[in-house]
């Protein structure tokens, strides 16, 4: 129940295209859903995050869509650029309490071709 399932494992998109990465969770106690971007040899960097009281959040070219009833959320990267080529991880956690450990998805390796 603590798992976050992520798909696809890898994704190739042409420059200017839309990249879509999907995640699903089981634990209804999760109430914070961030996406992290990781370049090789670097730490995960927070990209964008959403809470379940909204169905969509947009920051620049990055949009999270959230479907609470389906327990799914997705990352959309509009106008994908070669510089977006990285591994993307979805994650989930619960707000409050003494800990808010992140449960990560398995990652999606995105390659944007010029």
């Amino acid at each position, binding site marked *: 129940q603590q798992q976050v399932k992520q798909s696809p494992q890898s994704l190739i998109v042409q420059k200017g295209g839309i990249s879509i990465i999907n995640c699903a969770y089981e634990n209804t106690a999760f*109430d*914070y859903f*961030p996406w*992290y971007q990781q370049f090789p*040899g*670097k*730490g*995960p*960097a*927070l990209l964008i*995050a959403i809470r379940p009281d909204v169905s969509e959040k947009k920051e620049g070219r990055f949009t999270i869509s959230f479907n609470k009833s389906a327990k799914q959320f997705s990352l959309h990267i509009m106008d994908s650029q070669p510089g977006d080529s990285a591994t993307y*991880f979805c*994650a989930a*956690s*619960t*707000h*409050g*309490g*003494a*800990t*808010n*450990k*992140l*449960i*990560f*998805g*398995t*990652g999606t390796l995105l390659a944007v071709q010029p």
Partner: protein
Amino acid sequence: EPEVTQTPSHQVTQMGQEVILRCVPISNHLYFYWYRQILGQKVEFLVSFYNNEISEKSEIFDDQFSVERPDGSNFTLKIRSTKLEDSAMYFCASSNQAGTEAFFGQGTRLTVV
């Protein structure tokens, strides 16, 4: 911009040796974490630390692991007797509230030979 810093960036150690990985979290943050990432795999939670004590730990975090906040700025992860399977990237993270943005350091690549 404040950031989480980790040292060393790469540590090679003999099996059975003790290692200490060091982290300086963002200064006003209250929650501290260690995660690890085996090459090519997902990031896994190890331990969280709040109010000078461990608040949660995973099954990976066995008796060989310990954490400490020896002063007001450093946060360390000690592995007492390293095993080959401890080889991974270890990330320190911090946040200022539970359930909010966690910021990660650049990681320490630990190689056990």
